[in-house]
């Protein structure tokens, strides 16, 4: 319950934060909302010598539009994302995923960028970000670079963010008018999803014209069910058609086995949840 000793800095700008990172290297740990990091420190599963707090960098907070993209500052809290009218309008899938992310207290404190950078495959934001083709803006000593979602998630708790870099914002292509649903399967509400499916679809007179489907906790990173997406295009938004397309949801996945379910069961769940998520998304 008591973390090991560490030093602490709370830089006021991204530049200062990068400088601190450059100075301390892998001895440092960046804290955003801290809702995943602090439990790890309390259990002494990690003992950084310094913690760099991004909480005082105001420029990292906020939601705005930039042309066809929605821009979410890395330090924007889940609750601010969840209550944002802009996000609801242009990236409803994010709104739906945030709604049941962790619990109220954690949503008040946890951040959008922090959760994505933590890259827990059971986290609720990876699959929606992947499904929406989000772009991750990463600042480093040499300036900023932008990484597409399919390159951002590398492995379990591992992203494209380098040791000397910081995630500063996430840019999400607008999916205005798309229906969305996040179907999460848990045994008790405060646990990580056993499996969840993020689906957003564009319908045209009852026919699915475009579909994006992301999978949570079906492998070491969030996954995209690309085969399902392709199969859905041009299909009527009916139970039968979507059921058929959703059969491929678990293809190529390698989900974990744990106390909540084995790998095969998760694969089965993925197909059922995909169908439900797509139908719910299509139904508005």
């Amino acid at each position, binding site marked *: 319950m008591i973390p090991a000793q560490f030093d602490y800095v709370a830089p006021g700008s991204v530049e200062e934060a990068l400088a601190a990172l450059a100075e301390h290297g892998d001895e440092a740990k960046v804290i955003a909302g801290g809702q995943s990091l602090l439990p790890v420190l309390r259990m002494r599963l990690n003992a950084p010598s310094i913690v760099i707090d991004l909480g005082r960098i105001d420029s990292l907070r906020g939601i705005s539009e930039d042309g066809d993209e929605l821009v979410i500052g890395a330090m924007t809290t889940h609750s601010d994302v969840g209550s944002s009218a802009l996000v609801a309008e242009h990236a409803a899938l994010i709104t739906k995923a945030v709604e049941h992310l962790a619990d109220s207290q954690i949503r008040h404190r946890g951040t959008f960028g922090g959760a994505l950078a933590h890259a827990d495959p059971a986290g609720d934001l990876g699959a929606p970000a992947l499904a929406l083709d989000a772009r991750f803006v990463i600042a480093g000593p040499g300036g900023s670079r932008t990484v597409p979602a399919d390159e951002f998630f590398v492995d379990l708790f591992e992203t494209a963010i380098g040791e000397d870099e910081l995630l500063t914002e996430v840019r999400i292509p607008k999916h205005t008018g798309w229906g969305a649903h996040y179907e999460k399967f848990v045994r008790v509400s405060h*646990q990580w999803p056993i499996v969840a499916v993020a689906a957003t679809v564009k319908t045209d007179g009852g026919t699915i014209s475009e579909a994006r489907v992301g999978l949570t906790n079906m492998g070491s990173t969030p996954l995209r069910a690309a085969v399902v997406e392709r199969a859905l295009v041009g299909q009527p938004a009916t139970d039968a058609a979507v059921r058929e397309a959703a059969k491929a949801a678990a293809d190529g996945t390698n989900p974990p086995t744990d*106390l909540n379910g084995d790998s095969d069961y998760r694969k089965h769940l993925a197909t059922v949840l995909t169908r439900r998520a797509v139908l719910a998304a299509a139904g508005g």
Partner: protein
Amino acid sequence: MTATQDRPALEIGKDRRRKEDQRLITGRTRWTDNFQLPGMLHLAMVRSPYAHAKILNVSTDEAKASLNVVTVLTGADVADEQGGLPNAWAITTDQITPNHPSIAVDRVAFAGEIVAVVVARSAAAARDAAELVDVDYEELPAAIDLKEAAEDKVLAHPDLGTNKSAFWQFDSAGAGTGGSIDEAIDKARTDGIVIEREYRQQRLIPAFMEPRSVVVDPTSEQITMWSATQNPHILRFLLAAVLGVSESKIRVIAPDVGGGFGGKLQVTPEEFITFMAARRLGKPCKYTETRSESLMAAHHGRDQWQKLTLAATKDGRVTGLKVDLIADLGAYVALVGGGVPVLGAFMFNSIYKFEAYQFNCQTVLTNKTWTDAYRGAGRPEATFGIERIMDELAAELGVDPLEIREKNWIRNDEFPFTTVCGMEYDSGNYEAATAKAKEIFGYDALRAEQKQRRESGDPVQLGIGVSTFTEMCGLAPSRVLGSLNYGAGGWESASIRMLPTGKVEVVTGSSAHGQGHETAWSQIVADRLGVAFEDVEVLHGDTQIAAKGMDTYGSRSLVVGGEALVLAADKVIEKAKPIAAHLLECSVDDIEFSAGRFGVKGTDQGLAIGEIALATFAAHNLPDGIEPTLDSDATYDPIAFSFPHGTHLCAVEIDTETGGLTMRKYACVDDIGNIINPLIVAGQVHGGLVQGIAQALWEEAVHDEAGTLVSASFVDYLVPTAADTISFDIDHTTSPSTTNTLGTKGVGEAGTIASTPAVVNAVVDAIRHFGVNDVRMPCTPQRIYKAIHSHDVAESGGDPTAGAAAAQFDPQDTADRTEGDVQ
């Protein structure tokens, strides 16, 4: 004779808001961890990561050299002093009981066992230094799986030569309370029905919300211990007995205690260690566990395999039940650990009229966390077994599960009834409770909906689960405890002090930790003495204030402790009578006491009890030879157990595509005798229900093959939230107990005992038409899903006994491991 019939009921039965609440809702609390004393030192435990290992060396130099560290204690340091943790209940005279040192000396027997203790000036410094203690272990083979341990494949304690601690039997033929079980089963095999099932009571963790904490102040002649315990009196007695310190030199205080559920009845290594450290160092010492430590090292509950053989006639009349249990003690025999299954021995026959009954129980040592009482203690296990198998009998006969119960239960006109265990049930009305429960539940409409869903092949199936239960409460008549070889009595004590201001001070020997004693006791005393509810103060939980007590567990506080109150109050009245007569200048025979007033028969003259109290305090004008006090003590030893009962009905919806479960409705009607405070009773029932439901659906302490607890935090040990549960429909019928004056029966464990089988019966009922006759607890979505679909395999030529549908003896996979296992 019940007391409520011969006096006006004023406070008893009122839904008084609790006296306890004001400070709890404003944060003005005294949890043990709140205490800070001058110079106080903090303890951190170094715990074994191994389930079974030799301790080769404990290197403490680096830790000792750390800043602000005072000392580091190892088992070797205290080997001569620490003795062994007590087991108060050897269930047989030849029980094998391993010695249980507070700090392991040369061997650890479960993962989480303490091997060294760091004492430092701050909790942080202690924790930091604990990381520096270096222990060399030589890993030993560990006895983890209960069934394998019962076969002595690997020994949990090699020096004992066996894992089998004790074998305990009850046989109705041998006891003369019923027929021969073998004959009953043989007869049923030829011309009746025999149902054989094996059920698993998974390992649970009490998971009280307040982690355990203990503070010891040795700075005066008398050593004071504050502890988050249910049992301050038992703790003081055992500290004194084990450590050889005079009881009078130990004061134990249970300040605000945040829940227990049996989990805090233990006398713990942490308490002994903190006591020893404080005595050695002469400074106040504190230890507060983390939640992870609590889940790993505070005692666990349940953990049994139950083999049941039920014999019945062809028309469904049960003629006999045979129970073969193995019960996992964990690494040591805890305070009453071995006795927990024995508490269930008299309850497998439940509310039924069986002719023959046999109960066999083998307790087994393993290299896992020790087990002991968890809410219900033995009785939930028994109720689960019988209520599950009664459903199986109903299914075999194709009749409604309530019909099979009614055919076998004790009718209202048969009370008092002596059961096949020799227990005399004083009162009950199973017909009335069941009828009321069915009505509240809307039983017939739900059955109709279930039929409709089945016929239409709805992907969401409805299941209805039944549990008619009884339990034995009010632990316990001391003579009975003696006959079971228990180490103590079952009485309770109360004192009433009449204060000169007219206020009444009540001291109780039971020790509340959320039950609302202060409120309920005030109601009882207010009525008995005719004083205002507000004028009664209840003190408890401090051996210096409540010098005598047996503490709180086993639904005993009201049924036993409440009776002690009544006795003490009656003594006060009797003491006051001659004083009243003297002051009123009449004969004692003319004094009548009613509603707080001593009146002179046939006149309007009289004195209030408060006036007598003041006059007694002043003692200026008392009759000759009268002791100037009204204060009275009483100790009550119950003459019998009480037997609350009830009918619980649960409806669940099962999503057959995922195995997901939604509880639709839960209704129960409990007969707990007379109710002192319906608000408190409702709270006890609600909370009990959720704990029982949680056993059915969510909770399990899982050890991996190496003996490491996998569900070692609230991330994996799934205590349900508000979002996982529903609101309940609860009601009561009332058959007052005839064995105590208040007519109460006990309610603390009822919900937990009844709900688990109701939920599992509902789950099985929802999917029985898929060929399922059991789903092992916790009924996870995966287990439910696989149970539904295991039959698919059978139909296509697979092994028809595979999967969860097979709950007969000797299932394929007897390993007690959860992962990927649908049993």
